């Protein structure tokens, strides 16, 4: 090995500084971004002044919630459990819909561009219609209750999870895939033995996270009659029963925190 210097260190340090220096086009780019944000601010009718004036009013709402009317929890526990059921079954349905579509949408699994793009189009459609809109459709189709809520979550989350599954599959190491092809394994066997095991921790992480998201979403679904704790939330707000509203919000916070703790624990076990 030769250690002859082909270039003085000083010149490399100088070039490093020069590369870091803000150039005119950097400043111009930042200017364009700021201008664009300002233009959009007009579009959303940003009124920071009024927000500032309204802040005490919002604080007032929370003030009225104290002290929470704990007896109300007796009425609440049933819809709260129902919310968990909706989130759980929403995730199961999302898995059933998202996994096959995600496999079809992954470039390293599905060679046919036509098939892949069809799967992506379906996923995009499921994802772009929000769970609240799906809930309205499903309430109309199967009636009020938790069932349309679970369906709505399942269909919307299926579109999201399918996309995430596809990305997880695309990021796996190709070496084991090649090794299993070399054993004479069929395409499906390669997917199940070389691809799924590698992507599994990602799959589990995504499902746990979207279960948590599902609990939060299910609290809203009640507004359109799709079951869960959302119905009580809206009702107490409409009736100005602030102390009851406080209990509902605390219960939702407790559920989300518990799920977060549980999923952290599960994820630490699966890697």
């Amino acid at each position, binding site marked *: 090995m030769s250690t002859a210097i082909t270039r003085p260190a000083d010149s490399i340090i100088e070039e490093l500084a020069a590369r870091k220096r803000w150039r005119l086009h950097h400043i111009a780019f930042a200017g364009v971004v700021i201008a664009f944000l300002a233009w959009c601010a007009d579009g959303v009718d940003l009124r920071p002044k009024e927000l500032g004036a309204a802040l005490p009013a919002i604080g007032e709402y929370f003030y009225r919630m104290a002290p929470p009317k704990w007896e109300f929890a007796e009425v609440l526990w049933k819809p709260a459990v129902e919310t968990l059921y909706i989130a759980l079954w929403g995730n199961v349905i999302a898995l059933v819909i998202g996994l096959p579509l995600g496999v079809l949408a992954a470039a390293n699994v599905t060679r046919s561009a036509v098939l892949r793009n069809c799967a992506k189009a379906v996923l995009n459609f499921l994802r772009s219609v929000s769970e609240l809109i799906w809930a309205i459709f499903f309430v109309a189709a199967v009636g009020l209750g938790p069932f349309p809520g679970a369906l709505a979550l399942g269909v919307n989350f299926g579109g999201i999870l399918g996309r995430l599954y596809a990305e997880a599959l695309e990021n796996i190491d190709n070496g*084991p895939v090649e090794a299993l092809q070399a054993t*004479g394994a069929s395409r499906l066997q390669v997917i199940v033995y070389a691809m799924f095991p590698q992507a599994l921790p990602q799959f589990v992480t995504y499902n746990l996270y979207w279960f948590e998201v599902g609990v939060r979403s299910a609290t809203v679904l009640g507004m359109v009659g799709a079951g869960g704790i959302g119905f009580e939330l809206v009702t107490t707000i409409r009736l100005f029963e602030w102390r009851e509203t406080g209990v509902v919000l605390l219960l939702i916070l407790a559920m989300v925190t518990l799920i977060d703790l549980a999923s952290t624990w599960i994820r630490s076990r699966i890697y």
Partner: protein
Amino acid sequence: MISIRGLSKTYTGGVRALHNINLDVPAGEFLVILGPSGAGKSTLLRCINRLVDPSEGKVFHDGAEITGHRGDLRAIRRQFGMVFQQFNLVKRLSVLTNVLTGRLGYRSVWRSLAYSFPEADKRIAIECLARVNMDNKAFQRADTLSGGEQQRVAIARALAQQPTVILADEPVASLDPKIARQVLGYLREATQELGITVLCNLHQVDYAREFSERVVGMSRGSVVFEGTAAALTEDILHRIYYREPGETVKEEA
């Protein structure tokens, strides 16, 4: 017996990896293919088990043509075990399950989807693990093993295919010299006992001298030497490793 006739491969994008390779490998031989990185050794092995389709030429295995026809790829591939530089085990599966994947080429898709194998396959897998002295770690996850241990499991996986040929692509390039010799030793011992032909890519001359029955030297997509390891003179090694582009190649008798 493997016969390679006029084999060429040009990848899309114009990289010419192989140029008119002619080679015969008798059954049961331990052949080392020696050459620098980029000589086309990997492509040559992958043309034999059809992981790569050659642009021209044919490969025969015991008289039957492997290349060309669209035939049953699974049936072709399962005759050739393969060992890789990066081991390529499925890290999250157990040692035993990794070896069992060597049986997938023989098994129906539907049963294997449930991670279920017949008892006969389990016995084959355990026997193959015992050959590389890894049966005591059958239930350990593959990612808990050292590099040398992983490669031994990978050899067991290849053996589990009950292949007639093992294609080893730089099997010891990422191992230290002591472990490398041990792994090559296991490979030679198992294949000799079972009468398996081995085509082993290497770039280290020492190992070629130590383990090969015959050496093929490759450079820039062509075979530039064929003979015993003893015949590897400095001159020939120079030709394998330092051939300049455009330099004419004398065909070795």
